[in-house]
């Protein structure tokens, strides 16, 4: 290991202080790997959600082509071809960026190839799942209130976003707490502070990536949900509901989705952090505070998407609905 020790120069042997530094670094490395794993999981859930939305968006088009007499295999071939073009374009652009930033490093390109394979696999799985005939309509049992009925009926639309919110809340709250505890411990020495400064930057990058991916999935899921229910929202206006009642119905749903997901995530995080650091009220409060911040963030994203849908998405007075 080569570490640039202050006012000494680069020292390679892991003796004394450097031995301690190695121990600090290895614990940070485990930490970085956990964050990287969460990032990868988060990215997979984002892709799952995106592909789900894409399948739903093309469903009508597939139906129309089938009505025109196209066979299922021809329709699938057309959409497969479109997907390959998209994947190829994305691969060329991101491969170019990778080569420009990391050079032709075989490990980076092996990872890049794996990512493309996983993405293709995920797309194929999503396609298969969406092509299965839905049995939900006949076995569906609605809830007693409008809220529970809607939560049950639209659960598949929001499943990927909910899972991602649980993952993000549990992992980031856990990481945030452990990071905070480790940083407090390490920053007591100048060496620890130095290492923290260098490594924390990479972790923060991944950390921000997780939050951004979750925000993207949430925005897309809510957008899709409101688009699907645009006609219903307009119908409620026709039969005389005022905007505040419509907003309240949708707000309750969003609070329920975000509350259940972040609450569940917070519980997992408290359990995980308790197992690692021991249960203490300060750490629990920190995690609940962090989960609360994510909950508010989710509601903020929901409000923006809902505002956009109500303001701009319901135009088009030339149709009944």
């Amino acid at each position: 290991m080569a570490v640039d020790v202050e006012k000494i120069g680069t020292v390679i042997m892991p003796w004394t202080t450097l031995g301690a530094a190695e121990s600090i670094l290895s614990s940070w490395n485990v930490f970085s790997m956990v964050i990287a794993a969460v990032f990868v999981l988060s990215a997979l859930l984002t892709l799952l959600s995106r592909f789900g939305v894409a399948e739903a968006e093309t469903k009508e088009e597939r139906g129309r082509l089938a009505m025109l007499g196209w066979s299922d295999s021809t329709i699938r071939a057309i959409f497969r071809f479109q997907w390959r073009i998209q994947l190829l374009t994305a691969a060329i652009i991101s491969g170019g960026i990778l080569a420009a930033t990391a050079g032709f490093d075989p490990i980076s390109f092996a990872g890049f190839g794996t990512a493309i394979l996983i993405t293709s696999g995920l797309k194929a799985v999503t396609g298969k799942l969406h092509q299965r005939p839905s049995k939900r309509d006949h076995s569906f049992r609605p809830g007693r209130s409008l809220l529970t009925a809607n939560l049950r009926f639209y659960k598949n639309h929001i499943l990927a976003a909910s899972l991602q919110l649980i993952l993000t809340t549990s992992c980031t709250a856990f990481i945030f707490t452990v990071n905070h505890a480790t940083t407090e411990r390490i920053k007591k020495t100048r060496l620890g502070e130095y290492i923290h400064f260098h490594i924390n930057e990479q972790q923060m990058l991944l950390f921000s990536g997780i939050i951004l991916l979750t925000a993207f999935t949430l925005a897309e899921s809510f957008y899709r949900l409101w688009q699907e229910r645009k006609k219903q929202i307009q119908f409620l206006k026709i039969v005389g509901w005022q905007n505040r009642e419509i907003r309240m119905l949708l707000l309750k749903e969003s609070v329920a989705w975000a509350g259940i997901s972040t609450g569940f995530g917070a519980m997992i995080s408290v359990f995980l952090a308790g197992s690692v650091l021991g249960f203490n009220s300060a750490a629990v409060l920190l995690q609940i505070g962090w989960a609360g911040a994510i909950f508010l963030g989710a509601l903020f994203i929901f409000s923006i998407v809902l505002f956009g849908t109500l303001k701009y998405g319901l135009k088009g007075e030339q149709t009944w609905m």
Partner: protein
Amino acid sequence: MDVIVRHLSKTFRSGFEEKLILKDVTFEVKSGEWVNIIGRSGSGKTTLLKCLAGLLRTEEGASIFIGGSPIHQTPEEKLREFRRKHIGFIYQDFQLFQAFTAKQNVMLPEWPYTNRKKLEKRAEELLERLQLTDRMDAVPAQLSGGEQQRIAIARALLNDPEVLLCDEPTGNLDRKTRDEILGILHNCREEAKTILFVTHDYEVLKYGQRIFQIDDGVITEIDKPAIPG
């Protein structure tokens, strides 16, 4: 409630193109009358119903009065309240919420505004009247087209509205179910409800008292054609 329409015109703009859908439409419908509105696709029938309900803003010079209320001058919030209390809507594609049971669909217009128990009782009465007592807890996907349309009618009748706006409500139904639905609406007319019924189906015409034909946005009253049976 009387429906009075004077000098109603409506133009749709799309890019640089303008299309006049309704041209100086003027008519009166007396309280308790059933008026059928016929015309080719795109002739302006649905646009007329939307203007009557205040879902489309009318052009200057037009006036629409329903039961004396000036629809053309009423602000959006008040219009919604007016629709909720005085107008029932029935559509060709039923417009039922798939997530809710038949009873919840019927209760929907008044859900935020009326006591739940009272609302449930009213919905149950209506479903019973339309012979759907055993289908109250079914979701729309478990119901036939005729049952779904009866639920849509029950929902439209929830507030005992004085005016029913029907946009081809029998368009998706077979002959037997259509007659059933028309029979239910006929009973509504006997309760002095004013019915404006948009249709393509000439069989429906035997149910109304008057017929309006819309052709290229111009409305004319025509005589009832002779319909066998």
